[in-house]
């Protein structure tokens, strides 16, 4: 127990200012990137320069990039903080989040399609 703690402490001391704190430069880079990554999607949607489908793809892509920017520059998640366990917890959670969201949408979309066919003509309805 003592040995493990000492190793842990030595590892923390080596990058004490890096983990959990970041630097002013990190925060400013993160902030400037976030401003750009927020302004572009709002401009895309409000000006309507592109049609709906490409706008949706671009807006989603920019959101994913901005989440990564916040994770690195504001939350300081990297392979070194807490010996990498924050990163492991984040990756695990991201996988569960993807399964929950995409799984729900997939199942409910198909359920909806099977239960309530859109614009079915009355004559095409199966006899009671």
């Amino acid at each position: 127990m003592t040995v493990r703690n000492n190793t842990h402490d030595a590892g923390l001391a080596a990058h004490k200012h890096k983990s959990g704190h970041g630097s002013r430069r990190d925060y400013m880079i993160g902030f400037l990137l976030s401003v750009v990554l927020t302004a572009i999607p709002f401009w895309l949607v409000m000006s309507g320069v592109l049609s709906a489908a490409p706008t949706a793809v671009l807006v989603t892509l920019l959101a994913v990039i901005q989440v990564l920017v916040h994770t690195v520059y504001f939350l300081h998640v990297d392979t070194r903080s807490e010996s990498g366990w924050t990163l492991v917890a984040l990756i695990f959670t991201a996988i569960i989040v993807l399964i929950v969201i995409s799984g729900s949408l997939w199942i409910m979309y198909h359920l909806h399609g099977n239960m309530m066919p859109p614009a079915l003509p009355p004559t095409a309805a199966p006899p009671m």
Partner: protein
Amino acid sequence: MSVALDEKASTPTFYVIEDEHHDHSDEGPTMLGFWIYLMSDALIFATLFATYGVLFTAYAGGPTPRELFELPLVALNTAFLLISSITYGMGMMAMRDGDQAKVQMWLVLTFLFGLAFISVELYEFSHMIAEGATPQRSAFLSAFFTLVGTHGLHVTFGLIWIAVMLAQVGMHGLIPDNQRRLMCLGMFWHLLDVVWIGVFTFVYLLGVIQ
């Protein structure tokens, strides 16, 4: 416990273990534990986003996102929350420098921007409800108010936490315990900003263009 009693009172073993953590109280197991709590919070938001994703076209003849959402207002709110994230970050830098007055100043600024965010959100909600777009109107609106309202509730509790930390820092200064608490609050506050990216993208922006 019985072992500790047998030894001389001057060297109880459990004090040694405690002391190890006092040297670097901004590290230790609390940060990882709080991070794992935040990840469980992210799972709550995942279920709410999934619910919204399933129900977001179930208008029941009621108002649609295009009719309801005012993007300039959302852009303003996004700016408030983003600025509150950077002011909190500057507060953390002041904490590292040991400058208590600056920490308090940045905390007050973060609080004010967070309060502005909540105020605009409550204005938006009251406006929608006054127009008849209540949570009872359609499944879309139920999912909308649950998701966005839960985020707003988190921000509200963050504001209470900031107020508590202002009192704590005012009374006890930047003691190691307060530094640890401020770092946890920082993670909480930044994660709310991350969740808001999902909200303004998938609820507001994609809602208006669909």
